[in-house]
């Protein structure tokens, strides 16, 4: 099992539904979010390309946040999901510094570090992550890359894609179709 998320930047309209769905589903403290939208404008008029996409923790295969955690609070579970155990986390912030995507934040009340969980609690019930399930343009896909027939495997086989800051060596598991 190797979970991955595939996001089609050509379909994303930047509506932020995924952001709100995540905040609601995961009770994210006000003013924080586990996923967010970026808008990139490339080139100069008249040849401009606009790219919208939803970003979150990339659940890196080679996760620096897990390696640098002194207590083991940050860990990888089956399926490759990177999680934080709140009552093992001392809030040292090493993982926040180590993440090239700035995907982590310190929970304002709990003091532990928090971030996207790929909605592990929903996956256990056989549901999709909240963000994926609400996307009105259906631009997000979630599935198992070890299964060659899953939608995500087929998309990555047939479409051009990229990952974010691959030069950081983190092997992200969130893929962007371009």
């Amino acid at each position, binding site marked *: 099992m190797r979970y991955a998320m595939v996001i089609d930047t050509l379909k994303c309209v930047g509506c932020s539904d995924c952001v709100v769905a995540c905040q609601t589903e995961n009770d994210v403290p006000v003013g924080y979010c586990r996923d967010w939208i*970026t808008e990139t*404008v490339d080139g100069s008029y008249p040849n401009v390309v606009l790219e919208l996409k939803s970003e979150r923790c990339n659940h890196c295969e080679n996760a620096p946040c897990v*390696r640098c*955690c002194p*207590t083991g609070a940050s860990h990888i579970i089956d399926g490759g999901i990177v999680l934080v155990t709140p009552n093992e986390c*001392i809030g040292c*912030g090493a993982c926040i510094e180590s993440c090239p995507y700035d995907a982590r934040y310190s929970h304002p009340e709990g*003091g532990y570090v928090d971030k996207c969980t790929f909605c592990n609690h929903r996956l256990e019930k056989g549901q999709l992550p909240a963000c994926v399930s609400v996307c009105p343009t259906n631009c997000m896909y979630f599935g198992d890359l070890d299964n060659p027939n899953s939608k995500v495997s087929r998309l990555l086989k047939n479409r051009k894609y990229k990952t974010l*800051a691959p030069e950081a060596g983190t092997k992200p598991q969130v893929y962007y179709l371009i």
Partner: protein
Amino acid sequence: MQEEIFVSGRDIPNIDPSLEIWHWPIGLYLFLGGLAAGIILFASIVVILNKEDEYPTTVKYASIIPPIALVIGLIALIYDLKNPLYSWQLYTTIRIESPMSWGAWVLLIVTPLSFLWVFSYFSELFPTWDLKFEWLKKFEQFVKKNRKNMAYLLVPLSIILGVYTGILLSAFNARPLWNNAILGPLFLTSGLSTGAAAIILLAKTAQERHLFGKVDLALIIIELGLIIHMLMGMYAGSEVQLEAMRLLVGGEFTVLFFGFVVILGLIIPGILEALEIKGYKVPVAIPALLVLIGGLIFRFVMVEAGQITRYLY
């Protein structure tokens, strides 16, 4: 061709501006750790070479600093933890890949040893105090006898501690300013230099002052070399590293870095110490204090500036 790139939309007031999760206590902690490492290393070497009588300040009086510095440093570190009640979790596991983890373990060994070291000089430091209990007196004799063994242990440990203060930062590939291999040796050198400066400040004899004046001068020259090396490495690096370098060279940390760290904290005290060694009358407290303040500001600058730097994607 990409002529213009701008990224917007990531407007998360509580994450982006407060990405700086590490604040001044971390800089203070790194400074105190380096200072303690420096003094401990010098004291251990003096003991190993049987020169205790010639350099009493180093082994006795200056050695009171490391335990105090380490305790204040640890308090500062815990103060900056967001979940300090769980800090005992650090000692439930050893994680080789995490500098934070082995730093915590090294501190757990070095801090008590630094207390024992001072204790081994107890009756010399406080001749009027009486160790009330017989077993305490016996214990003092025991540590006194084992002082040299402690010194052998503390030489590698203090070097690890000094290097660790730099590696803690340089291990973060996500922060281009920190992510260079020179930071470990650089922080070690700076820590040793502040340690020597503290000894100069306390030294009572010209012999001890001059020896550590020379040591400090050598360390200052090495440190300047390493700083040039670090900047050259970044200058030859990728765009993210260039961007990191610009913070120190021409960017918002230029005055602090070149003014207070390089010029006031290294070059001027270096010149003053050279003059003092040559026999000119220089109040040694001035270069020593400049080195100490420069070392502290250096840690603040590196911790603050490093957190701003990031990957561009």
